[in-house]
């Protein structure tokens, strides 16, 4: 017997519905909490969505946020946010900060003068300071970006539910959409809670979570569909438990490999994409949870029609009830 690392035993028989009320409560709590936090804290929109300028500074001297603020306070720039950036990958004399300036009132386009004055003021602190990246987004574009971002998320939710509806049944589509909504909302809640910068790449991360979560859910659904044909007389709840147990090993394995890769990126990938990677990493957890505890619970509550013939199985065809098309009550 060769050695095998098994994250999950060969055969499991967890009752995933045993804690149904509790998991539902947890999910509901986090969803409500996310809405509350979103309302109270709001999202920390990056310049993609808010318009404005971010300047990355790099200096051999330690970043003194107060000094930076003093240097910029006289320039009448409105809202200025200065954050020091830490990364294990930085050299000892590499001190990085991120200066964010809100969009200037009344200017439709990006003004190079603003950037030039800011750079000049900061050079007053350290003449050797460099600006490895400067980004400006005008308010007109940022408004459009918000719009496309919302469209993108909605469009993907709709497209996925249509696909699931076509391939499975409408109950599955509802279950899937609820779990996706759950994942997206809670991830946004986390972003609002910790005030992590929310920008275009975060939207990409959200959509990736949607993709991953649905991937997980579909595998469970697929097995469920198969088992529903196989065990025609067993209770739906039992078949569901069986399906999740059967796919549990795969669900865990794939989540772990994906997490391994993402954690490598989170630790070693540099600070520029850390927020993005963090969102996806968090999403893998929640996506895995929701495919086990959210999606199929909804399908259970909605019920599934079981009297449909399996087109591949002639026996099932013969046993079909005379009341074809009647809903199971």
């Amino acid at each position, binding site marked *: 017997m060769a050695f095998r690392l098994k994250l999950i035993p*060969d055969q499991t028989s967890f009752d995933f519905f045993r804690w149904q009320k509790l998991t539902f409560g947890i999910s509901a709590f986090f969803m409500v909490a996310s809405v509350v936090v979103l309302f109270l804290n709001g999202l920390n929109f990056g310049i993609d969505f808010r318009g404005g300028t971010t300047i990355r500074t790099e200096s051999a001297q330690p970043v003194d946020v107060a000094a930076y603020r003093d240097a910029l306070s006289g320039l009448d720039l409105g809202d200025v946010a200065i954050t020091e950036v830490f990364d294990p990958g930085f050299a000892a004399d590499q001190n990085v900060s991120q200066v964010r300036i809100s969009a200037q009132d009344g200017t439709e386009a990006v003004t190079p003068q603003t950037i030039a004055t800011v750079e000049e003021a900061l050079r007053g602190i350290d003449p050797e300071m460099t600006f490895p990246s400067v980004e400006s987004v005008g308010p007109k574009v940022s408004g459009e970006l918000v719009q496309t971002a919302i469209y993108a998320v909605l469009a993907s939710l709709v497209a996925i539910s249509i696909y699931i509806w076509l391939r499975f049944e409408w109950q599955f589509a509802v279950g899937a959409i609820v779990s996706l909504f759950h994942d997206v909302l809670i991830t946004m809640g986390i972003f609002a809670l910790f005030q992590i910068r929310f920008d275009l790449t975060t939207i990409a991360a959200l959509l990736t979570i949607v993709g991953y979560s649905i991937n997980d859910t579909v595998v469970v659904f697929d097995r469920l569909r198969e088992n529903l044909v196989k065990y025609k007389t067993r209770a739906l709840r039992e078949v569901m438990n069986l399906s999740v147990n059967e796919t549990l090993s795969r669900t865990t394995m794939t989540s772990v490999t994906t997490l391994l890769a993402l954690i490598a990126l989170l630790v070693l990938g540099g600070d520029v994409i850390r927020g993005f990677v963090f969102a996806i990493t968090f999403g893998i957890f929640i996506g895995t949870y929701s495919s086990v505890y959210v999606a199929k619970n909804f399908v259970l509550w909605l019920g599934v029609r079981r009297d449909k013939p399996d087109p591949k199985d002639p026996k099932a065809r013969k046993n079909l009830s005379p009341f074809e098309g009647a809903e199971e009550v």
Partner: protein
Amino acid sequence: MLQIDRWKRILIFGICLLGLFYALPNAFYARVEAHNDAVARIEATGVETPELVAARDGWPSWMPSNLVNLGLDLRGGAHLLGEVQVTQVYKTRVDALWPELRTALAAERDTVGAIRRVEAPEGVLSVEIGNADQMPRAIEIARGFSDPVTTLTGAGQQSLAIATQGSTLTIQLSDAEKAVTDDRTIQQSLEIVRRRVDEVGTREPTIMRQGEDRILIQVPGIGSATELKELIGTTAQLTFNPVLGTTGDAEAQPGLGQFIAPSIDQEGVYYILEDSPVVTGEDLVDAMPGSDENGQPSVNFRFNPTGARAFGSYTSQNIGQPFAIVLDDEVISAPVIRSAITTGSGQISGSMNFDQANQLSVLLRAGALPAEMTFLEERTVGPELGQDSVDAGKVAAGVGFVAVVMLMILSYGRFGVFAAVALTFNMVLLFAVLSLIGATLTLPGIAGIVLTIGMAVDANVLVFERIREELRTARGPARAIELGYEKAMSAIVDANITTLIVAAILFVLGSGPVKGFAVTLTIGIVTSVFTALFVTRLITIMWFERARPKQIEV
């Protein structure tokens, strides 16, 4: 039983080898890039310096030299999104119309009475005439300046919208003409920007139209967006110069007050031109393709009043002589003056087809930006920051890859090794496809690749887990493997199609880095399904045929 036709085996291997072949240049990125640059440079200039030849020979020419395009966030450079104020052109057009219209109306002063331009919104020409009852005649005259709009949809429409109110005649561009004008303005702006940016000779800039009235400009290797803006802001030099002669010798010594300019389309032809231009591009109002009296393609152009006067007096004195249209010290065209052109509008005709006429009109207009451009978005990334990101991404991808492979081998033993081989080919194919289609790799794109590494084994995991299950019902190893693949199929297809849907939406709606992420994610899904379903399976079957195990363990 487990069988794969020979031709299918060859095809699968072939695809993998081809992938390896096309992915290979990326392993020698700097060298291949130097080779590509040298080839382009030699082609453009025709000069082979020893350094260029050395760079060119650094990579064999029979090998593919397509590379994954590094995005600005990885290479460093500047990104600008400009919006062209297309409506400005309407004003220029109606203002240019006024002198001509005034002359035409003034000629009929006896009928229409005194005329005067009155105040009107921008882009509208309002003229008050003395005899309000003679308005029909005034309209008739104004209509003489209107041309049919030549578009596919706007057939039958006129270029000018003429309306009257009491004694006031208002003229503006018709909607059809506005649409045509907008399109021309953007095209012209693109052409000018391209010429400006090409002049500095940085590596492959991206200059493209985005939406109705926007232009996206991405220039790798440029220091800052501000620098790029200054570059675009400079005006191209368009002049109309008298021609003194032609020569085949580029080194010929021109006389005092003369200079030599090469022909843009005839090789080895140089024009000797008079230094002081008759008219400059600043006086050109418009140029558009049309056709001459014989129905041959031509380019129609028009000057502002000053230009028209200067051009009129020059052409009337030099009938039969050629004059040169010079753009950035190159002669675009040197037509012969057939008759005096006093109206300010002229025509260039000769041996050209409609495409060339269109091209020439674009070039003619490429003097100055036709309308102001405001910048909506600008991003600068320093080259060091980009390099840091590339390095960090490489390390992360390497570590992630090793970790995933180790977990797979620990969990599935021999089959894990098969999956690892497939994962390697997956990466190879991903890079091959990215290189072939010239996709741009961005920082989130790297994240997409790392995510692919993690998720790519999913299809394999699904199959392996399924084989494990089938083995439990003791059907014999061959049957278990076969059933494992068969039964996992629908889950793999459904799971990947849904992810593909998301990636497609990201691609359509995303911009910049997000699009880059969508590209790597999409290709990653396709290649991972291919490698999991075909490559791993082929390896498994080949092993199985050789070893004929009585028992397998997954």
